[in-house]
C-alpha cells in the first residue's frame, strides 16, 4: 500500500494528466452521441449571458440583410392574407396545433462536423426539447437542450441530426442527414429507386414526426446517385436556408405533443 502511494506521489504530474485527459476524452465521446452531452454545453447561464452581451454589438452588422429577409417574408404573408377567403376553413383546425415563437441566434457554427446553435429563449418561454427551429426559408434544427433563458439547437448541419422529409412532388419520404462536408449541401437517404426524381425537385418536411409540421421547405435536389446495394438513392440537397448566416429564427412548438406521446406509449 505504501509503495502504491509512493508511486502516485512520484508520478503525480502524470497521474493528474491522465485523469484530466480521460475526463476530456469521455466528454468528447459523449458529445458524439446524440442527447448525451449533459454537462458541458453553451445553453447555460454564464455562456448564454456572455454571448448575449456581445450579440448586442454584432447584430448590427447584418441589419440590412435581415431587413430584406423580413420584408420578403412580410410580402409573402400579405399574399396569404389577401387570398385568405379562397382557402378552405378546415385547414385552420390542423394548423393551430403548432405555435410559433420568434427567437434570436446568439451563436452559430458550421465549420465542424457537429454543429450547434444557441438561442435566447429557454424554459421560461416554455421551450422544450424536441421543439423544431425554422426560418422563413426553411428548417434549421431541433432543440436539444434548454436552460432557464437559453436553449441549444442540434443544427441540421450535425452528423447526428436526423429529420424526416419527403419529396414534394411524389410524397415519398426519406431521412435527411449530413456528411459533415459542405454547409450548403445535406444528404437525403432511404428513398427507394423506384421513385422518379429529377434535379431541382423540392424537398419538404414530412410531418410524420411531431417536431415539424408538414410542408416546411428544406431544399432542392442538386444531384443523386444509388447507394452500394443499388436499391436506395443518396440524394444531395441544396438547402434553401443559408446556414452560415442566421439571425432571426422561429421555434415551432407542438401543443399536442403530450397527447401524441401518450398515444405512442399506449401503442407499445
Amino acid at each position, binding site marked *: 500500500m505504501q509503495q502504491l502511494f509512493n508511486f502516485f506521489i512520484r508520478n*503525480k*504530474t*502524470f497521474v*493528474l*494528466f491522465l485523469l*484530466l*485527459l480521460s*475526463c*476530456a*476524452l*469521455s*466528454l*468528447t*465521446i*459523449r*458529445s*458524439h452521441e446524440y442527447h448525451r*452531452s449533459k454537462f*458541458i*454545453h*453553451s445553453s*447555460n447561464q*454564464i*455562456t448564454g449571458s*456572455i*454571448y448575449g452581451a*456581445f450579440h448586442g454589438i*454584432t447584430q448590427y452588422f447584418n441589419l440590412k440583410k435581415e431587413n430584406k429577409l423580413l420584408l420578403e417574408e412580410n410580402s409573402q404573408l400579405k399574399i396569404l392574407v389577401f387570398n385568405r377567403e379562397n382557402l378552405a376553413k378546415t385547414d385552420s383546425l390542423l394548423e393551430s396545433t403548432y405555435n410559433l415563437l420568434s427567437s434570436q441566434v446568439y*451563436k452559430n*457554427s*458550421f*465549420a*465542424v*462536423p*457537429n454543429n*450547434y446553435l*444557441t438561442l435566447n429563449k429557454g424554459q421560461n418561454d416554455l421551450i422544450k426539447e424536441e421543439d423544431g427551429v425554422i426560418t422563413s426559408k426553411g428548417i434549421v434544427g431541433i432543440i436539444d437542450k434548454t436552460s432557464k433563458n437559453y436553449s*441549444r439547437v442540434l443544427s441540421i448541419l450535425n452528423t447526428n441530426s436526423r429529420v424526416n422529409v419527403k419529396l414534394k412532388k411524389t410524397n415519398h419520404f426519406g431521412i435527411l442527414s449530413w456528411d*459533415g462536408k*459542405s*454547409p450548403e449541401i445535406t444528404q437525403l437517404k432511404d428513398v427507394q429507386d423506384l421513385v422518379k426524381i429529377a434535379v431541382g425537385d423540392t424537398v419538404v418536411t414530412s410531418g410524420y414526426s411531431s417536431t415539424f409540421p408538414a410542408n416546411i421547405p428544406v431544399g432542392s435536389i442538386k444531384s443523386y446517385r444509388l447507394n452500394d446495394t443499388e436499391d436506395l438513392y443518396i440524394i444531395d440537397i441544396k438547402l434553401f436556408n443559408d446556414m*452560415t448566416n442566421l439571425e432571426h429564427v422561429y421555434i415551432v412548438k407542438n401543443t399536442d405533443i403530450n397527447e401524441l406521446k401518450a398515444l405512442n406509449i399506449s401503442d407499445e
Partner: protein
Amino acid sequence: MNNLVFINISRFVGLVLLQVIVCNNINFLGYINPNIYVLFVLLYPVANNRLLFIFLSFLLGLSVDMFLDSGGTHAAASVTIAYIRPLFLKFSFGAVYEYHAVKFSKTDLTQRLIYFLILIFIHHFILFSLVVFDQNELLLIFKHTFYSSMFTLLLCLLLSSLFSNKET
C-alpha cells in the same frame, strides 16, 4: 509575483473571450478558424507549479468547449500540450531552459517560431482528430490541422510580439 498572477488570469479570460466571440466567427474559406487561446499555454511562465499549470490548461480548454459545444475536444488537446511542453521547451531553447531562465519576450524569433509551431501543430492535430472522430477521414483531419495551425501560428506570433515589452 502578484503582478504575474494578475497577468495570467486576465490573459486566460481575455483569450477565451477573444476565441469564442471573434476567432470562431472568422470561418476563413468556410472552415478555417484560428485557436488563439493556446497562447495561454504557450506563454505560461516556465518556472511554475506543474500540477497547477496542467489543471489550468484543462480548465482553459473546458471553458472554450463549453462555449463551442464541442464536448471535451479542446480540453483534451490543451491538457496534452501542457503536459508535453517541457520537452519542447528544452528542444527549442536548449541550455537557457535548463536554468529556468526563459523569458519569452527576450527569446529570438526563430526559437520562438519553432517552439510555437510544434506545440500548435500537436494541439491542432489532437483537436481535429477528436472533432472529426473518424479514421477514414485522415486527409480531412490533416487539411484542417495544417490550415488552422498556420492561421493560429501567425496570430500567436503577432499577438505575442504586440504585447511583449522589450525594455523590461
